[in-house]
């Protein structure tokens, strides 16, 4: 009856568009009814929060028990400046830290390396040695607050510095908590801050898994990330499918090494994007939890902790506009709300000025306040998974899951994740989606307020974050002094032990920790691994 009435209506009053689609090109009907979800068995497919398949959330009380961690990704200039920014954020109610490193650090180069030219402190903080790490966290209670570090290629070394710094402060390593991103697969796929080829990179990652559950049990030794896949231009479905595919790949490698799934799986964590299509994003997070639980069960996990997916969310940087930057506050609010309605464990909200530069203090504060308003004023946190049971949301959640399994099959046919990377499969899929999105914007088929509609003449100058001009010089002098004053024979001895171990198949973490403890720099330690492992060259696809 409804259908007949709808058809008659659109004959006289046509809809605004021929077809309505999500950002993943999923076609959306005018209305969803019990018929669209008739195949769902509530207990089997939806169930209760805190219980398999965790569709509705990982805890039975969710935000009624504890709010998500408000964790603003930040870092710029020297360790001193970033340390000040962390204190500023903590003073304004931030509840976790998240470190952005500069490009030389992300590639395992010291600040004085020739390839670091022009990059010092530009899109993150420079950390070249344990000394820098100590300054970065000076006077911050790292025994109480958790720290997430966005570092991949040299993740083991930077983590070793964090551990060594804790030890120097007499904080036991089995009490510190945090996350290293450590997800190399998505580097090859999207973010491109890789160093070593896949095989040795995977070995290093599994080394951190093993070291983590044995000695640093509160640490998430990986954050399997869809964020960068999405920023590179993928759709929501591709983000979901490629990220979960990567996750399963890590589990398989760890099991191949002989690790027990229930030992390491509880410390695997995830990281997703929150983009513009409101309901699709929420469905994505829900589907992610259910697929992960199912797949881990298939792989033999028994513990409930192994099956549940914990994830961090960041609002979509690529959705921010340079035009009318203030309206980004509204975009970020909607995206943050998606993450919360999707049950995120921690959240970063972007600042309004980030399409133009690093965020100013004021812009960051507004971004943090956005989370606080959602958490403490809006009331959306008062019940668990408030959208669960919506015909549309449940249908879309199922649809995202279906499409994800379709991608799993495709990747399987290509021989698995790493062969698919080497063939450029993911890279090509993402480039296609990115180009299609841009064409839609250019052709006004997709509205971006302020960019292709509702434009104004405006001056785009904004207050720019000023960095300490002496920072780079100070950092280079510090490095010089460090190299002169440290016990060089100890450094040499530790580096050659690492070289020997890298050629064999022992866990490298203890060797790396010894290196950084003796003040071997990031670049020196990484060079040993470059020498043994070689460097990755990517196939160029566009």
């Amino acid at each position, binding site marked *: 009856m409804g259908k007949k009435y709808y058809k008659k209506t659109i004959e006289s009053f046509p809809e605004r568009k021929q077809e309505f689609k999500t950002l993943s090109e999923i076609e959306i009907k005018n209305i969803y009814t019990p018929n669209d979800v008739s195949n769902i068995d509530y207990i089997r497919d939806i169930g209760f929060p805190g219980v398999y398949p965790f569709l509705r959330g990982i805890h039975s009380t969710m935000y009624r028990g504890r709010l998500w961690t408000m964790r603003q990704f930040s870092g710029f200039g020297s360790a001193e400046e970033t340390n000040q920014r962390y204190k500023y954020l903590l003073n304004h109610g931030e509840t976790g830290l998240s470190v952005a490193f500069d*490009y*030389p650090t*992300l*590639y395992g180069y010291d600040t004085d390396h020739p*390839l*670091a*030219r*022009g*990059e010092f402190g*530009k*899109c993150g903080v420079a950390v070249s040695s344990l000394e820098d790490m100590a300054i970065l966290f000076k006077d911050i209670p790292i025994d109480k607050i958790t720290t997430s570090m966005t570092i991949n290629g040299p993740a083991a070394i930077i983590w070793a510095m964090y551990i060594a710094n804790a030890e120097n402060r007499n904080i036991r390593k089995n009490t510190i908590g945090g996350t290293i991103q450590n997800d190399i697969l998505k*580097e090859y796929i999207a*973010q*491109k*801050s890789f160093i070593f080829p896949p095989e040795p990179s995977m070995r290093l990652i599994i080394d951190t898994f093993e070291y983590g559950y044995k000695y640093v049990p509160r640490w998430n030794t990986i954050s399997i990330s869809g964020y960068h896949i999405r*920023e*590179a*231009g993928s759709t929501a479905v591709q983000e979901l499918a490629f990220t979960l595919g990567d996750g399963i790949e890590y589990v398989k490698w760890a099991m191949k090494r002989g690790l027990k799934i229930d030992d390491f799986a509880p410390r695997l964590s995830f990281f997703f994007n929150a983009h513009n299509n409101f309901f699709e994003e929420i469905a994505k997070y829900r589907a992610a939890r259910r697929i992960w639980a199912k797949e881990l069960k298939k792989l033999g996990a028994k513990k409930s902790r192994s099956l549940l997916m914990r994830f961090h969310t960041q609002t979509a940087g*690529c959705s*921010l*506009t*340079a*035009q009318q930057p203030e309206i980004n506050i509204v975009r970020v609010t909607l995206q943050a709300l998606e993450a919360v309605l999707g049950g995120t464990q921690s959240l970063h909200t972007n600042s309004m000025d*980030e*399409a*133009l*530069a*690093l965020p100013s203090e004021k812009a960051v504060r507004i971004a943090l306040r956005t989370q606080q308003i959602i958490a403490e004023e809006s009331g959306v946190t008062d019940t668990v998974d408030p959208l669960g049971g919506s015909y549309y949301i449940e249908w879309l959640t199922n649809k995202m899951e279906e499409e994800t399994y379709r991608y799993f099959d495709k990747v399987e046919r290509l021989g698995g994740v790493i062969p698919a990377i080497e063939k450029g499969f993911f890279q090509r899929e993402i*480039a296609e989606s*990115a*180009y299609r999105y*841009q064409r839609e914007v*250019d052709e006004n088929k997709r509205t*971006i307020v*302020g*960019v*292709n509609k509702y434009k104004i003449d405006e*001056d*785009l*100058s*904004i207050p*720019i974050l000023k960095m300490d001009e002496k920072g780079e010089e100070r950092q280079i002098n510090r490095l010089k002094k460090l190299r002169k004053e440290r016990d060089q024979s100890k450094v040499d001895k530790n580096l050659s032990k690492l070289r020997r171990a890298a050629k064999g198949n022992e866990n490298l973490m203890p060797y790396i920790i010894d290196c950084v403890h003796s003040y071997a720099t990031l670049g020196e330690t990484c060079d040993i691994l470059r020498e043994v492992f070689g460097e990755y060259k*990517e196939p*160029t696809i*566009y």
Partner: protein
Amino acid sequence: MERKIRVLVAKPGLDGHDRGAKIVARALRDAGMEVIYTGLHQTAEMIVETAIQEDVDVIGLSLLSGAHMTLFKDVADLLKEKNMDDILVVGGGIIPEEDVSKLKRVGIAGVFGPGTHTDVIVDFIRKNVKK
């Protein structure tokens, strides 16, 4: 037949954000230009060397790490040094307004930020290319 405009799309420095570079490369190709993409992690020397080898009319630099004031200038300086400043150099990325005029002064003829219509880049190149 008129020779097609030849463009080198290049990623200087360590920045791995290649979404914009790839989109622009494709848009320029769709607009009838011949496009060469360097791939990631190029030094100024590598970029200029490729520009010579490929005999390009235009270099398009893309950088989102914030190091544009150093790395874009390096490329423009090297071109001047080699008397190749007839090559049109344009750039794009996360570039604050106050840097745009500075970049223009050092020889980056056009600077395109987020939200730029790809046609704007195509038109700019067609109007300003020296051949």
